[in-house]
């Protein structure tokens, strides 16, 4: 059975390969906001008191790590494509095939992320090299496998959330607004714009129970080695919990949706 999805992965690679120039353009353009962020935080850190938790190097390292995790684990167009397939009735063809749609889409997502990370490697490598004096390799060798595990968890979590949202296309015509509503939560609460530990303790405590920090902030914290063993265990438990929750939600919505689905003209 695995062979089928390996094949889908291969097809996904071929399919996304035509977008390689888009990927390069995209990652080149994303350098501009990164430089903007750098200037803003430099101005923040230059002020007398500055930030107690982060100096400039730590902040730079933080945003570079955000970029890396984002490249590896964040779905870019998956939710749009899945929703479009449902809306336009293309899933009829898939329904007749003996494959699990969630696993099928997950394989395509994997292929897309893999190729994206590979194609944009020169750009990312260039950025890492330019900023090398701010970056610090992890002290403990254990950090790497833990980081890899948390990125995997983050990718699954983000994918399942995106997939669940796309499933709503079975019930409503236009899901793009809902995608953007969730996206604004993710953008600010997963640590994209500022490190979440700069928030007030009360807000931080509340955020820990939501899925958002485990999409981005948690893996980044691991790479920066800012978590003690207790926080690490807790984080992995919460991430695992949310991956399972969203995985089940995704599967359930699919099953309900297919029951409701009527292909136009079919």
């Amino acid at each position: 059975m695995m062979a089928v999805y390996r094949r889908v992965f291969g097809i996904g690679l071929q399919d996304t390969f035509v977008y390689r120039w888009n990927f390069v353009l995209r990652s080149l353009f994303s350098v501009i906001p990164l430089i903007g962020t750098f200037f803003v935080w430099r101005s923040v850190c230059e002020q007398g008191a500055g930030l107690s938790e982060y100096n400039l190097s730590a902040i730079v390292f933080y945003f570079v790590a955000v970029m890396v995790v984002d490249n590896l684990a964040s779905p870019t167009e998956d939710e749009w494509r899945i929703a479009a397939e449902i809306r336009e009735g293309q899933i009829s063809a898939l329904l007749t095939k003996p494959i699990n749609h969630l696993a099928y889409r997950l394989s395509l997502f994997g292929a897309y992320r893999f190729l994206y990370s590979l194609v944009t490697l020169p750009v990312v490598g260039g950025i890492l090299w330019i900023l090398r004096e701010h970056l610090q390799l992890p002290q403990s060798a254990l950090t790497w496998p833990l980081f890899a595990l948390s990125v995997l968890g983050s990718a699954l979590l983000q994918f399942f959330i995106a997939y669940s949202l796309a499933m709503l296309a079975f019930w409503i015509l236009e899901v793009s607004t809902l995608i953007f509503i969730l996206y604004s939560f993710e953008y600010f609460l997963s640590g994209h714009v500022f490190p979440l530990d700069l928030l007030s303790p009360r807000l931080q405590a509340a955020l820990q129970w939501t899925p958002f920090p485990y999409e981005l902030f948690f893996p980044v914290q691991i790479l920066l080695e800012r978590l003690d063993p207790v926080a690490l265990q807790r984080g992995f438990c919460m991430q695992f919990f949310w991956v399972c929750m969203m995985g089940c939600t995704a599967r359930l919505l699919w099953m309900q949706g297919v029951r409701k689905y009527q292909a136009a003209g079919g």
Partner: protein
Amino acid sequence: MLRYLKIYALLLRNSLIREMSFKANFLLWTVVEVLWFFGQVLFIDVLFSHIETLGDWTKWQVVALVGTHQVVAQIFQAFFYVNLTQIPELVRTGKLDVYLTLPVDSQFAVSSKQFGVDNLVNTGIGLAITAFSLSKLGVVPSVGRVALYFFSVLLGVTIHYSVMFSLSTLCFWIIRAQGLIYGYFNLFNIGRYPDSVFRGAFKWIFTWVIPVILVANVPTRILTGALEHPWLGIAPLALTSLLMLLFTRWLWLRGLARYASASS
């Protein structure tokens, strides 16, 4: 000129009718915008819980900046954004032919078909935020300053238009240019920050070559009275936006020349 205005009024009316048939969606877009603002304000709040000023800007000046940035971006998106994003597709599929045969200027035709009403509502939200931060700052701008504010906002819209138009028009040379559309958002991402945090070549390029830093900063400085002489801000903004607009014209004509030769 009058003929163009009449055509434009008709196009606006059509868009309004189309939008109003999707009311729920219309409201949800406003929700998205409000959430986005809350996120930005949260970010500013986090920053200013650690510092007093960013560059030479205080907290509520930065909020006014974010509000103004939104005003400019949303006016641009209301009138042009959707149309410009469709140019690559028109070129790729050859549907551009239809626009070329219309008895109006082709750049006008591709720039003006659709119009986003929800963006105008969001412009209102941006203005409200800006006004609120002015009250927090205790600044009451004169009528003249408000007029200059709106004038510089329009110049900013011109720059938004020129940047997006240039990116879209590159599709005459690069067929799969969707990646360039992200460029627009990435470029204007830095326009929300105070100009005084930027330095060196980066500042120079994004002030004089692609003046995204000026777009929101100049109007905000005019409104909050942070510029002694408003014209000191408006002059470079007017100059760069005029140059950029001429550049789009040149690029469009070059692109069309290439398009014609490609399809025959």
